[in-house]
């Protein structure tokens, strides 16, 4: 990039209206916190229903996924996310929405070439790098536990 363009890019970036970071953080904290509390409440409820600690944790996640997918299908999730930002994106609800919204979008192209092929176009990186990080962590854990 030549010097003129660098100056222009800096000028454009400087004058661009900035996102309201503090407001976004406050909203993300509030909504994200509410979702986490809801997750914990679900866990308590599933435990009370007689599930083991592991199973109730898993069922709490599954319930959150179900709610997020239903809200996506009814066209409400994006409206909540517009307000909440990272508050809905970071918890498992964001992942569920990324998959469900892509499925809805690709529906018109068929179940194989549409939904099947495009289901993970948005959520794919989370799976790829999440699984990769898990594998690396597992390998390191294995080596360290064998050594010491």
């Amino acid at each position, binding site marked *: 990039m030549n010097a003129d363009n660098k100056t222009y890019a800096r000028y*454009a970036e400087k*004058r661009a209206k900035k996102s309201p970071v503090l407001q976004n953080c406050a909203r993300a904290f509030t909504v994200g916190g509410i979702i986490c509390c809801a997750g914990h409440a679900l866990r308590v409820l599933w435990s009370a229903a007689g599930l083991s600690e592991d199973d109730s944790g898993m069922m709490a996640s599954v319930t959150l996924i179900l709610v997020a997918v239903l809200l996506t299908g009814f066209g409400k999730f994006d409206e909540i996310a517009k307000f909440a930002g990272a508050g809905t994106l970071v918890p498992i609800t964001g992942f569920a929405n990324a998959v469900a919204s892509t499925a809805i*979008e690709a529906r*018109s192209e068929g179940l194989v070439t549409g939904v099947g092929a495009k289901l993970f176009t948005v959520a794919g990186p989370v799976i790829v790098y999440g699984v990769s990080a898990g594998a690396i962590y597992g390998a390191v854990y294995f080596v360290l536990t064998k050594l010491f």
Partner: protein
Amino acid sequence: MRKPLKLKNRIYIAASASVAGRDEAAGPLGGLFDVTDTEGNRFGEDTWEKAESAMQRMATDEALRRAGYRADEIDALFAGDLLDQCVGSNYAHSGSGIPYLGLYGACSTAAEGMILAALACEAGLGVCAAVTSSHFCTAERQFRFPLEYGGQRTPTSQWTVTGAGAFILSRERRGGGVLPRITEVMAGRIVDRGISDLSNMGAAMAPAAADTLLRYFGAGADPSDFDLIITGDLGREGTDILLDLCAASDLDIAPRHADCGLMIYDGCSDKHAGGSGCGCSAAVMAADVLVKVREGALKNVLFLGTGALMSPVTVNQGSTIPGIAHLVRIAGEEG
């Protein structure tokens, strides 16, 4: 076309028509659009892509009806949209029987189509049509995220207009009254100033608009010759940058300048920096500006179709966003 090309023949915009979606119909120009879908932007179709084609068809049919021409009297049709392979246009006109040339000029397509249709008339064709569309739901899929994906937009991002515009250009003048005439055209140059933020198209397009304006006014005309200098979809961000760039070159267009992207939505709506997409300038020109020329409220108009010539693939590969701005001079002529 290094210099502005003055057309030797009298080439009229015999009629224009506009189609707009729900949010656009709820905006400040809402009452001016000829056809709107205030329900859900599907225009009676089952996919968004078909809906966009339907919009182009509706705009073309309405413009032809107003101009008093049948489809088989049109010598050539120049049409474009934002989709891969220009399918919005291809499917819209597949049954029309009109000789067809598909265009891709990103958001500048309305002006590009007008220029080419005017040149085709200048070369000897009798009647040509220029038709352009964009649809929020097809463009989001093409360029961004699924519609129901939950994310936040940055304040500089723009909103693709669900809209279409059709313009019938003719050498023959039918009827009295004032008719808009295309008197001068100039193709833009591709200008890339190193912007890589897909959410700040205004900053990518503004230098191209400034380049075209400086070339045009450098060739002799003066901003005071015009009642209106209107850009396609620079939005809030791009408009401010364009005025800065022009002022830095001692060109004062501010009192006469307007931007279709800022006209189509009201400030309090959720559209951030304003409207974009090639349906934005097409619908605003057809519904508002050309109507005012016909009514005599505007006599000389300079229309700049602005476009960001990128794809998400090239931007992900690290390329910056090139911009372009094509120029069309329109004058009202009494019958």
